[in-house]
């Protein structure tokens, strides 16, 4: 029998558990879900409020003030991020200045330190970039930001380290009072305790009513949020609030503890305690209101949207008291804002209350400090990082490439009594999947690590609660064993004939980042042009990049004059690398590229290493646009994949991602995956496309969709996703010419899986870090005819520059980059100066971009090749190339579509020899624009 049972492992339950673990008591923490911090704690603003807002004399006022005061020490003890960056409540109208004054006075009464009312000038210097009409603000320097779920988990771990038991997947179904004790049941399971603390959040009323007559009712209030990519956090130095109204604190803008930007919430009363879906209306409200504070917020950097429920009651204040009818049963309910800030205060208050009820507690002689360090590997100093890798090589293997999270951290998150058991559990603790690709790349790997560490099958790995299965089986109906090699096992030890470089070498002539089609072709071309000292750095355990999962045919018609599959195409280049003896480092992640061409990489054998290159070729490829980035409202269950992630799981890993699949977007990967799903025994309910035409190649439409009788719904979009644990259905609607849903056309389609095929984005985080200038329309670097970026000696090619339709063009372009890099190296050695003049290329009217952007006339070989794409569909069109006003060439095209890349070859002889500034391309005849 336990002395005390705490129901609910949110921030409140875990804080109380940890506080109680300081005493000689038998304590159990009970949670209905599979993990701590899974309700309100998982989805909120993550703000530690200063405490000027609550009614003086209330529990909220007292505990907010106390909690905020305790927060710094608590977080540093537990190694959880907390930044006291201060908050600003901003007034935009005269009458709001009065509100500020009232808040200020209330703050003084609540004993909030360092409050200050600041005028317009001071405000704009404290927080640059606010809308100009901001008149003044209440400045509260003690407000801060934290990571609430990491905090709750750290609290639970510290509690367990000091003897508290935790029971997950224990939704309480019954509580009986019996002779001075409570019998707490979950189906057949039972826990006995002398005292009960009800910290069940949204369900606190239900738990209370298991033993007591109803005395309060939890009325969930939903708040929706946007989360923006890392580094956008700088848009808010402080936590920025509008003036509060009767509805609440309003839509805030703040940096998160990890440097993302969070924008929200709205406040909407909802019936269900599980209504954590987002809505188009709610998110629109958030966006409009945020822009009242600050215009020009980078909503194009949104990586996801989410919603959380606040456990409101009719009482204005927290309810923290012993139930009248049940001595020993303490309700800790109605903990809405400022619940997070107040949590440390609440924990102490509840312990004091329990002491009053049960008599004095005996303090433990030795309260143990937290055993686990949650500090992200990447935030450690270089020396510590190196030590970590030396002690455990898994810290040298990056799994999440958006957030640079190592295998070591993921394993650490799984270990221990409150270790992660699920993909979301890992995400809460170390954030893989919390970045811009939203788990597209690392998801399958994280699942493999979970399966390996917990000794379960991949198919048993859940996103969150037991119903949230991710995989629906294996392909071929045949088992897949544990992966013995690759990124989550020991490094590839088999002899593949590839020259794998071991050991650190400080200087290279050429370093190629990325061993996909771009990097391989660049390396081959550089060697053929006389560069001996080349290194390819690849993050995966093998070369070939995305080609290895593109098992379909259609590659190589231009490059090899025969039709190959993706892996065959890759192998042709891998064979060339072997013949040429070009060195590679596999399973190696580049962390940064400097403008002086230093490259810092990490892997398990070399640790953290910086090398110097004479030239660099960037070939990192692209990533998929996620559901989060395109703001599709609804719930966030398992069963939502980007098409490429599904492709990897099905084709390489041998797993099925769904039984009844809807494909959103008619890009080629989506169409090809639709066919794969059907051939592997699944059902594709439809492919839906917002535009009036299919985006993929005609061939893919015919051979992947039509051949299999899959309905293709053009001019349709998803307006809602339903399903708590796994996708259950999708609401679709017809779209108008602006691709917006048309009212009254909504209908529900049953499915368990959604594949998003909504376009690709060049992956330029390393390029940005180096200071490479990017083109807004391609998303890739601005390059010259040799594929050199704005930084001397740094070249780029393939999908990192612009998304190609055919890999054959990637190879062509990359050969030029490799050749360009080798010529650059030679020129440096011979200190040669370039002759001639430079001109820019200029896309006009329907041409959306041209690569290259700049051309040095003296470096054109015999022909200059321009790559471009058009906006819209065109028939019987004519492309006109002009140098300044001089006509250079016209090219007739029967048909032009945005999905197809256009290339125009221009003979050097046709270009004017006299200097000119611009080479433009335009569409002259647009007879039948669709």
């Amino acid at each position: 029998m336990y002395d005390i049972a705490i129901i609910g492992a949110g921030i409140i339950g875990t804080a109380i558990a940890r506080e109680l673990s300081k005493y000689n008591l038998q304590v159990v923490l009970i949670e209905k879900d599979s993990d701590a911090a899974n309700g309100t704690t998982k989805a909120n603003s993550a703000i530690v409020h200063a405490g000027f807002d609550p009614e003086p004399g209330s529990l909220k006022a007292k505990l907010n003030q106390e909690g905020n005061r305790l927060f710094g020490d608590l977080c540093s003890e537990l190694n959880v991020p907390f930044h006291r960056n201060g908050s600003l409540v901003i007034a935009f109208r005269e009458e709001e200045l009065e509100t500020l004054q009232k808040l200020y006075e209330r703050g003084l009464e609540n004993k909030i330190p360092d409050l200050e009312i600041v005028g317009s000038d001071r405000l704009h210097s404290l927080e640059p970039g606010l809308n100009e009409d901001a008149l003044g603000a209440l400045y509260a320097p003690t407000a801060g930001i934290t990571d609430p779920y990491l905090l709750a988990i750290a609290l639970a771990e510290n509690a367990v380290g000091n003897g508290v038991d935790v029971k997950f997947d224990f939704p309480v179904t019954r509580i009986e009072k019996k002779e001075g004790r409570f019998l707490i049941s979950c189906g057949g399971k039972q826990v006995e305790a002398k005292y009960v603390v009800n910290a069940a959040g949204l369900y606190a009323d239900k738990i209370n009513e298991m033993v007591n007559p109803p005395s309060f009712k939890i009325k969930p209030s939903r708040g929706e949020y946007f989360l923006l990519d890392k580094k956008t956090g700088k848009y808010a130095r402080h936590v920025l609030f509008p003036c509060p109204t009767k509805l609440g604190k309003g839509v805030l803008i703040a940096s998160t503890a990890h440097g993302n930007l969070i924008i929200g919430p709205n406040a909407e009363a909802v019936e269900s305690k599980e209504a954590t879906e987002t809505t188009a209306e709610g998110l629109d409200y958030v966006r409009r209101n945020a822009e009242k504070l600050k215009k020009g917020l980078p909503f194009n950097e949104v990586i996801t949207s989410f919603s959380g429920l606040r456990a409101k009651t009719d009482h204005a204040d927290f309810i923290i008291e012993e139930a009248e009818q049940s001595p020993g049963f303490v309700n800790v309910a109605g903990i809405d804002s400022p619940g997070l800030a107040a949590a440390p205060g609440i924990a102490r208050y509840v312990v004091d209350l329990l002491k009053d009820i049960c008599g004095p507690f005996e303090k433990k002689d030795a309260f143990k400090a937290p055993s686990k360090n949650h500090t992200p590997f990447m935030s450690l100093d270089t020396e510590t990082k190196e030590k970590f890798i030396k002690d455990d090589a898994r810290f040298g293997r990056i799994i999440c490439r958006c957030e640079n999270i190592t295998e070591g951290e993921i394993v650490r998150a799984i270990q221990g009594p409150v270790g992660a058991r699920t993909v979301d559990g890992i995400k809460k603790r170390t954030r893989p999947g919390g970045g811009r690709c939203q788990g597209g790349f690392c998801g399958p790997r994280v699942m493999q690590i979970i399966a390996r560490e917990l000794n379960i099958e991949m198919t048993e790995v859940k996103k969150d609660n037991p119903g949230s299965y991710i995989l629906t089986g294996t392909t071929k109906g045949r088992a897949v064993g544990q992966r013995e090699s690759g990124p989550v096992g020991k490094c590839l030890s088999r002899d593949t004939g590839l020259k794998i470089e071991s050991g650190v070498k400080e200087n290279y002539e050429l370093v190629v980042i990325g061993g996909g089609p771009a990097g391989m072709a660049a390396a081959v071309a550089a060697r053929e042009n006389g560069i001996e000292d080349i290194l390819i750095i690849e993050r995966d355990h093998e070369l070939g990049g995305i080609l290895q999962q593109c098992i379909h045919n259609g590659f190589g018609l231009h490059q090899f004059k025969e039709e190959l599959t993706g892996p065959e195409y890759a192998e042709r280049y891998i064979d060339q690398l072997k013949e040429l003896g070009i060195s590679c480092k596999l399973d190696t992640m580049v962390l940064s590229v400097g403008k002086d061409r230093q490259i810092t990489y990490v892997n398990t054998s070399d640790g953290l290493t910086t090398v110097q290159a004479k030239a660099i070729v960037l070939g990192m490829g692209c990533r998929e646009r996620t559901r989060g980035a395109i703001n599709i409202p609804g719930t966030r269950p398992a069963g939502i994949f980007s098409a490429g992630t599904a492709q990897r799981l099905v084709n390489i890993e041998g797993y099925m991602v769904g039984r009844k699949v809807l494909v959103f977007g008619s890009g080629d990967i989506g169409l090809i995956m639709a066919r794969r799903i059907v051939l592997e025994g699944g059902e594709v309910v439809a492919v839906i496309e917002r535009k009036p035409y299919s985006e993929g190649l005609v061939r893919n439409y015919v051979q992947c969709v039509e051949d299999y009788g899959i309905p293709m719904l053009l001019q349709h979009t998803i307006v809602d996703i339903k399903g708590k644990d796994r996708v259950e259905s999708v609401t679709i609607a017809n779209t108008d010419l602006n691709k917006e849903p048309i009212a009254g056309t909504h209908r529900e389609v049953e499915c368990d899986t959604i594949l998003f095929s909504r376009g690709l984005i060049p992956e330029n985080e390393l390029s940005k870090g180096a200071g490479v200038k990017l083109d807004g329309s391609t998303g890739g670097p601005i390059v010259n005819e040799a594929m050199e970026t704005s930084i001397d000696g740094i070249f780029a090619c393939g999908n990192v520059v612009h998304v190609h339709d055919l890999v054959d063009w990637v190879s062509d372009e990359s050969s030029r980059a490799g050749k360009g890099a080798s010529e650059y190296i030679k020129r440096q050695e011979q200190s040669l100066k370039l002759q001639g003049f430079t001109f820019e290329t200029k896309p006009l009217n329907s041409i959306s971009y041209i690569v290259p952007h700049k051309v040095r006339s003296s470096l054109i070989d015999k022909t200059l090749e321009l790559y471009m794409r058009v906006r819209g569909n065109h028939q019987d069109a004519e492309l006109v190339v002009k140098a300044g006003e001089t006509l250079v060439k016209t090219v007739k095209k029967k048909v032009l579509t945005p999905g197809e890349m256009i290339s125009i070859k221009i003979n050097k002889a046709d270009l004017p020899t006299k200097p000119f500034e611009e080479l433009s391309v335009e569409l002259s005849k647009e007879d039948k624009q669709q």
Partner: protein
Amino acid sequence: MNESTTREMICILCPLGCKMQVSEKPGQPEDLKVRGIQCKEGKKYAYEEYKNPTRILTSTVAIHNTTLPRLPVKTSKPLPKGLIYKAMDEINKVEITGPIKVGTVIIENLLGTDIDIVATRSLG
């Protein structure tokens, strides 16, 4: 022949994606009437696609003793379209042991068609 034998097809040869109506000429089953397309190649495609539609089938087979659990494969030649599902059944029956070289025949003379299933990558 009546009109009900007319088949709607989309030409896949270029991005135009011409919608074609293909039907057999009355009394001349060897000859086809192709409407909706002008170009020669398109008409040739229509003929092929009407008389004997074929596809390269790509898939994977289960493999052991290798770094990855599935080996990508394809048909060595285009397969009659009607045999795709039967071919999948055959492919799914296979379980092989690595290492394997690209081009290795995994299934010989698939369904008596003289078409092989071959490995499309080397896997060790």
